């Protein structure tokens, strides 16, 4: 823990005063960013100011801050603190545009991270614990304190033998002495220059590349005198970041000394430029629409296959590899693409698990989705995608362990992924449609906007924009690297307009197909839903794409007959919708199957009467006392009933007959598959932000302005936590953690450090 210089402490009074003169729009933005600030029953400027200064959620908010805001927070912690705006300007790189700097400071204020009071920039107390985004390590005292007395004495000895003045004593005294020695940049330079080959190169890398650390455990403890890492470590110029860590870090003071007293050598306030170039609009929209059309068809196909084949989940979630392969073969896509399409269905809320969890099956939503138009189906999927965030883009991605993230499971992912996804969507909306976007420059922008996104690259399996693009390309939102016009509308939450727009590019549903004598049907485009449904009952899909090919077979025709259709109905359907007529071969196939269909009849009865005398059987059938049994003759000697045996026996006896019960010797039950639906899919989320937040914030501000003493009832039931928002749903699959937990510091050590921190002001810049 770092002690806040007294001068840098933000007073609630000053905060209240400053916030009270903010316009409503700025207050609205602050409170939207920081829902925790208005969880107050009796809101006043004072209570708001206290929350602003003390709220622990500031640390959460900084994860949503871009590089420029983080840089400002960072430089505000450097002595002297608080800095003036001019000092901030110098520290973040000097030649910084005034307007951009002011905008960045405003964004910092609206995130509740700090405030400008009387031209000085303050940051809230919690941010003094923040990590070091400028590429500066922790203070030297923190690093030295983590070393053992023996190690510190070793450093002391090395510095002494090199001719520098250092004193030994208690551990804090030794640390203080080493710190003083290394606080002089000329001393450090001398030490580095005397090091083995490569020492200067390593030192320069730690200084300027943004990462002040080097990972080297074995060398640190080896006697290898040629090791630059070991040399710097034994002279105290780099130190371990933890007691057992193999990460050696350059301390902040040394970094600052060699950067001329400012953490940023180059401007970080200006966002990196995203390079774009114009592309032909019709080409992009046509291409994207074609992808979108294919998407909805393939998702529908997968869902129908899931419904027909009873897909069982693995115990660990997800589906079996063989099932995935089968589905991939069905739609003619790779397993990776199929996984992602299943992800679309899953996170789109179209497929879920049955109540007992034993099967995957379509949801209630699927039924209405299936019967909507292609453009509406597309919009529903895209809406769910925007609501759910990066999940679809993650499915099929190979994780750090080299495993592909499976479909049909809920995902646990870091808030950084969500923030990167949202930032990417926002930037694309700003850029607009029909511009080819350079992904590398977009990634640079996203790293600036969401600095933790750089860790995604560190994980070596994702670029920040990949999360968005993986799904956007699959969904037809983006084509050939450019946003489509309807994709742009969807991202701008203009879904109705997006539907209208994409409709003009999608072929109108067709109501005809070509029947071939090779027992095939060729469907060019999308069939109207009801025609499609019927055709799928009587033929098997052989290949899919812009054109779908169906094949008729004995099994497929029999399936339709099983479903209750008759041969005449099938022939009439094909004659009606098949252009160029019904080929003789197909007509014959239908006729032939129909002829054979039902030559064996099976049914379900509860009981039967086997009556040797046909005359007696006829009498039983006509007996009015037995009418309720609804007896039916299957032959001259066999009568059946839907009532159970005991009821039949009772009624026969009541009617005066002398029946004998027979033991059951097997029955042939017809397997009737029931339509299984589930409403248990918690994944589907819509893109809309609940209006209640905006309204309640507005109401909250009104109360503040009126200084109204009546209780204010917030519509937000519990304080907002950025972390809480970002980690949602049931976690069953972990991508990676948000960030290191640094709450396990030793209290005694922290106390020592706090004392030593006070000396920081005397550091030579």
């Amino acid at each position, binding site marked *: 823990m770092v002690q806040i210089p007294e001068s840098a402490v933000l007073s609630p009074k000053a905060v209240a005063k400053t916030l009270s003169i903010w316009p409503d729009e700025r207050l609205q933005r602050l409170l939207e960013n920081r829902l925790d600030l208005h969880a107050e029953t009796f809101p006043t400027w004072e209570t708001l100011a206290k929350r602003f200064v003390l709220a622990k959620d500031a640390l959460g908010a900084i994860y949503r801050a871009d590089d420029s805001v983080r840089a400002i927070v960072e430089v505000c912690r450097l002595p002297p603190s608080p800095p003036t705006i001019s000092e901030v300007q110098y520290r973040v790189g000097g030649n910084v545009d005034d307007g951009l700097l002011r905008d960045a400071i405003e964004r910092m204020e609206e995130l509740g991270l700090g405030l400008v009071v009387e031209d000085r920039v303050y940051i809230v107390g919690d941010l003094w614990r923040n990590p070091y985004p400028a590429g500066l390590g922790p203070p030297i005292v923190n690093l030295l304190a983590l070393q053992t007395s023996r190690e510190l004495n070793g450093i002391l000895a090395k510095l002494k033998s090199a001719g520098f003045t250092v004193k030994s004593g208690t551990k804090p005294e030794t640390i203080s002495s080493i710190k003083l020695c290394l606080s002089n940049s000329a001393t450090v330079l001398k030490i580095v220059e005397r090091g083995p080959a490569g020492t200067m190169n390593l030192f320069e890398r730690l200084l300027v590349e943004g990462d002040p650390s080097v990972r080297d455990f074995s060398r640190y403890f080896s006697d290898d005198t040629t090791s630059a890492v070991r040399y710097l470590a034994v002279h105290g110029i780099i130190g371990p970041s933890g007691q057992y860590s193999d990460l050696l870090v350059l301390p902040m003071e040394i970094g600052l000394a060699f950067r001329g007293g400012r953490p940023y050598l180059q401007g970080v306030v200006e966002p990196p430029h995203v390079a774009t170039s114009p592309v032909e609009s019709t*080409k992009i929209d*046509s*291409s994207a629409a*074609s*992808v979108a059309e*294919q998407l909805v068809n393939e998702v529908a196909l997968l869902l129908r296959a899931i419904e027909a084949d009873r897909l069982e989940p693995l115990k660990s979630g997800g589906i079996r590899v063989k099932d995935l392969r089968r589905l991939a073969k069905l739609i*003619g896509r790779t397993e990776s693409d199929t996984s992602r399409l299943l992800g679309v269905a899953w996170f789109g809320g179209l497929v879920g698990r049955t109540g007992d969890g034993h099967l995957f099956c379509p949801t209630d939503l699927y039924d209405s989705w299936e019967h909507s138009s292609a453009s509406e189906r597309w919009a529903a999927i895209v809406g769910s995608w925007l609501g759910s965030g990066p999940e679809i883009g993650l499915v099929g991605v190979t994780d750090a362990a080299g495993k592909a993230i499976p479909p049909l499971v809920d995902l646990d992912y870091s808030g950084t992924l969500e923030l990167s996804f949202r930032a990417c969507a926002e930037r694309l909306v700003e850029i607009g449609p029909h511009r080819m976007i350079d992904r590398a420059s977009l990634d640079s922008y996203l790293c600036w906007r969401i600095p933790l996104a750089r860790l995604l690259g560190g994980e070596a399996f994702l670029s920040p924009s990949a999360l968005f693009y993986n799904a956007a390309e699959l969904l037809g939102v983006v*084509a*050939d690297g450019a946003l489509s016009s309807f994709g742009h509308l969807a991202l701008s939450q203009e879904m109705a307009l997006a539907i209208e727009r994409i409709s003009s590019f999608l072929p109108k549903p067709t109501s005809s197909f*070509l029947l*071939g*004598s*090779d*027992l*095939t049907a*060729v469907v*060019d485009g999308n069939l109207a839903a009801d025609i499609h449904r019927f055709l799928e009952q009587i033929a098997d899909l052989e*290949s899919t*794409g*812009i*054109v779908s090919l169906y094949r008729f077979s004995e099994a497929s025709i029999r399936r339709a007959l099983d479903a209750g259709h008759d041969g005449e109905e099938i022939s009439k359907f094909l004659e009606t919708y098949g252009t*160029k007529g019904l*080929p*003789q*071969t197909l007509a*014959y*196939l239908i006729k*032939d199957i129909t002829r*054979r269909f039902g030559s064996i009849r099976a049914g379900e009865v509860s009981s039967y009467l086997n009556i040797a005398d046909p005359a007696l059987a006829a009498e039983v059938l006509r007996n009015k006392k037995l009418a309720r049994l609804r007896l039916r003759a299957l032959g001259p000697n066999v009568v059946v009933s839907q009532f159970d045996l005991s009821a039949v026996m009772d009624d026969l006896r009541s009617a005066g007959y002398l029946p004998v019960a027979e033991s059951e010797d097997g029955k042939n039950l017809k397997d009737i598959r029931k339509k299984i639906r589930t409403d248990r899919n918690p994944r589907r989320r819509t893109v809309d932000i609940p209006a209640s937040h905006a309204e309640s914030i507005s109401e909250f501000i009104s109360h503040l302005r009126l200084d109204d003493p009546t209780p204010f009832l917030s519509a937000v039931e519990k304080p907002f936590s950025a972390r809480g928002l970002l980690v949602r749903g049931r976690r069953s699959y972990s991508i990676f953690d948000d960030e290191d937990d640094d709450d396990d510091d030793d209290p005694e050590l922290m106390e020592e450090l706090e004392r030593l921190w006070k000396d920081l002001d005397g550091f030579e810049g």
Partner: protein
Amino acid sequence: MTVGPVIVQSDMTLLLEVDHPEAAAARSAISPFSELEKSPEHVHTYRITPLALWNARASGIDAEGVVKALLQWSKYPVPPSLLLGIEEIISRYGRLRITMDETFGLCLVGSDRAVFEEVLRTKAVIPLLGNRIDEWTVGVRASERGRLKQALIKLGWPAEDEAGYVDGTAHDIVLRTDAFQLRPYQVQAAQAFADVGNGVIVLPCGSGKTLVGVAAMAQAASRTLILVTSAASGHQWRRELIERTYVGEDEIGEYSGQRKEVRPITIATYQILATKRKGVFSHMDLFGAEEWGLIIYDEVHLLPAPVFRMTADIQSRRRLGLTATLIREDNRESDVFTLIGPKRFDMPWREVEDQGWIAPARCVEIRVELTDEERMAYALAEPEQRYRVGSTARSKVAVVESIVRQARAQGEPILVIGSYLDQLEEIAKELDAPLITGSTTGVVRERLYQSFRDGKVELLVVSKVANFSIDLPDASVAIQISGGFGSRQEEAQRLGRILRPKADRRQAHFFTIVSRDTNDQEFARKRQRFLSEQGYAYEIIDAVDINSDGGLFDGDLD
């Protein structure tokens, strides 16, 4: 929005709308880099395969040309990923080349270091290579040229074979152009082969593949080895050569079970080459017996495995494969591609028919109801015997008799074709017709075929020996009473027996008699698939609907 006749699917199939006014032009544009898979009446399916793309690249069509053709003729926007995929596949061709170096002999030369090194370290390739010559070149064992190409194809890095061919001993073969003219497609096919010196020509039965072979021989003008399926087929080649060229009888040798003549043009059967004596293929020496400038593989889809192996050793010879159905029941199509060569030319059957070069054919499946006794016999048969029981049902005989009676009334020459000897013997006896089977001597066979050609015999009952390469130009009715399970190529070849164009341009009739509700019916459906995909619509009728007094040939069925 484009409105071309081709629909490009993301699975790399191309669907050509046959009725589109620009279908013909589009077909010409896409066929060099795609394989015709099926051609039913409305929509023909082509598939873009790596082999087809490399084949196109070898013929000088680059990725840009392929992409341009797709974009030009596509009805809908082409998926960009597909275009990228095509470019990637094509770019794999030619990074390795097989060349002939004056000093070092046969060499493998790389132009992409990473690929070259990867390939050189592959287990399958190492034993085929000689010494490393320099950074980019390695020697290749002369005998391993074919196997190296096979191995490289499997690795996905096809080599461009620039090592050329030996010319062989020159031998003039001149066409009698004063007596006949090659048809346009025969000229195109022969030229497509001559341009590269290897490959397969696929043309329908009866469309004159032999003449394409003869034309290729004339262009090669060198000693030629012709490999055929049977001695009868060999005789047919001999007849064609004498009739269509100025080659004399004494220049043509027959290398078969009966004779072992090696002459400038030698016709050998696959059977004799594949015959082993004391564990050795003693007749394989024939490949080295002469400096052959050209080797022709007739009915290349039937090439036996030992001949494949031998073919791998003779990659420096020009090689031409001929077939009507490039379907191998053993799925060795890629070996045909690698060792004989890629498909250089093909033409849909119906297109050849439309141009009048083969007879229009009507295909009819007649379903026969089995008697109760036959149904019981079928039901009680062991599973492995069921097909035989079903397809040899006695009930078929009456149907055959009825068709023969009606065909005779029309004056049609008839072939009855089957697979089971006892069934064929019975039918031959019932119909009082001569029977040709594997045990019929060559002399008798030839005499019967000749009698049939001369019109002295109007009905022949034949076993599968007549499936291939038997030229019976006047046969116009074929009645198939049983077949080799689900063999698609056999069905097509049998139809091919009656496809020679008739002088009066009349229709040919192909009847296949099938026992209803047995697996004969199932296998029949599988057998018909190739022809169905070529646009031959099988009409299905019930045997009971055949009027005994006629109607089968004039369409007045119920």
